[in-house]
């Protein structure tokens, strides 16, 4: 397997995470009435890290945090040879009238976010929904969806694959780009 090219290494990676945390604090203060929701599976890895960092910065705040799986809401159910396997959804707080921040690692076509918003509707009516993505592949969108908070922007052709790798999962915090998806061991 050809190795991917690193587009964000460990040190600037931490700075980006910190910047995202402070951007959220700037808008949400102590996170009262706010619900952070990581999208399964890889958005949750990002959300876990952001939540841990936010708790460091604001030890007294009460953060509501949950995980949402959107497998059953996907519009490409028929396009795979095998059924898509679901991960756990864990939303123990009520969503009604909360300010929701959806968190995903890579914003690409926008279809995941569309499915996530459909799924959210089944849990209640949030007062607002914002989107945070670590990587924004801004030229590959299929739908009119835009992130409110982004870590880095990556301009790449459709065939390229961007992977966020995490220290506790994959050995190192970094963002990689591969010319094609099949070269990646996911």
């Amino acid at each position, binding site marked *: 397997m050809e190795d991917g090219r690193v587009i964000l290494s460990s040190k600037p990676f931490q700075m980006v995470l910190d910047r995202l945390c402070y951007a959220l604090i700037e808008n949400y203060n102590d996170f009262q009435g706010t619900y952070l929701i990581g999208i399964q599976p890889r958005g949750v890895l990002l959300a876990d890290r952001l939540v841990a960092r936010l708790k460091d910065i604001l030890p007294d705040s009460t953060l509501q945090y949950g995980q949402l799986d959107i497998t*059953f*809401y996907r519009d490409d159910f028929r396009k*795979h*040879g095998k*059924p*898509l396997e*679901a*991960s756990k959804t864990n939303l123990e707080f009520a969503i009604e009238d909360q300010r929701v921040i959806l968190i995903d690692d890579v914003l690409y076509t926008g279809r995941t976010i569309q499915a996530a918003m459909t799924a959210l509707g*089944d849990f209640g009516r949030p007062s607002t929904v914002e989107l945070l993505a670590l990587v924004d592949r801004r030229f590959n969108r299929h739908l009119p969806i835009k992130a409110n908070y982004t870590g880095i922007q990556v301009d790449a052709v459709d065939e390229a694959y961007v992977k966020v790798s995490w220290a506790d999962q994959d050995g190192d915090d970094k963002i990689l780009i591969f010319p094609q998806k099949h070269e990646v061991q996911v």
Partner: protein
Amino acid sequence: MSEGRKLSQPHLLGIRDLTTEDIRLIFDTAVQFKEVLNRPIKKVPSLRDTTIVNLFFENSTRTRISFELAEKRLSADIVNFSASASSVSKGETLIDTVNNILSMKVDMVVMRHPAPGAPELLARKISATIINAGDGTHEHPTQALLDAFSMEEKIGDLRGRHVAIVGDILHSRVALSNILCLKKLGAHVRVCGPPTLIPKWISSLGVEVSYDIRDTLKWADIANILRIQLERQDLRYFPSTREYALYFGIDRAMLEELGQDVIIMHPGPINRGVELTSDVADSSQSIILQQVENGVAIRMAVLYLLAPR
């Protein structure tokens, strides 16, 4: 969400065809659907472009409602069919009936039929996905799956655990599917009932046979109590239901005397006062209503995993 495992079979005809990995995949998927069923809006759009026909050639309340709910929770379009109100009563054959329905573009067929093997015949002759919802005295795979799923939920891994199946083993498709499923999950299985209702060949499935209910309850972690199927009995297998209740019925006094926390299950409908008394069926030891709840999640998992793609 990941592109993962798939079932080894294109249909669900019986537990016999499933591998242990298939059963695990169904359980893992059912856990996620159980969470869906506890949401304010208990519905996901996964099967919104799938049409399912429920073909019931035999009476059913629970299984039919359970399948129907599972299909609706997955947003499938459904058509219900019961034999009594159809051309079957005019003499149409099974294959003709089904082919007529399929020419109206149906993707999946959930079928209950009094003849053992009817779903297998259909699977060979037609192109839709077939799910067996009970074929005569043969198999009832989704019931066995939801039973085993409920057991695992209650006591964890079934490997090495003792499960007793009590009652009318001879006429019960639930018994056969349960035995096959539990063996695949590594449990020790014992059947118990009057000798006339336990077929001789049953030990060839690797189960123990006992005619002593007290000894069996002492041995078991879980007892799955089956209904006496009076409607399938062409002759008298025991003198009276009163006598059956006396020798094989389970009541509170018996459980207390054993001092045993055996978990009580029943696939329903219960003949109260025959195989179980009300104070056992409604007690905290019984997980009968959890079985019903899990039935919808298990059927959603089976439909989701087998949906044509």
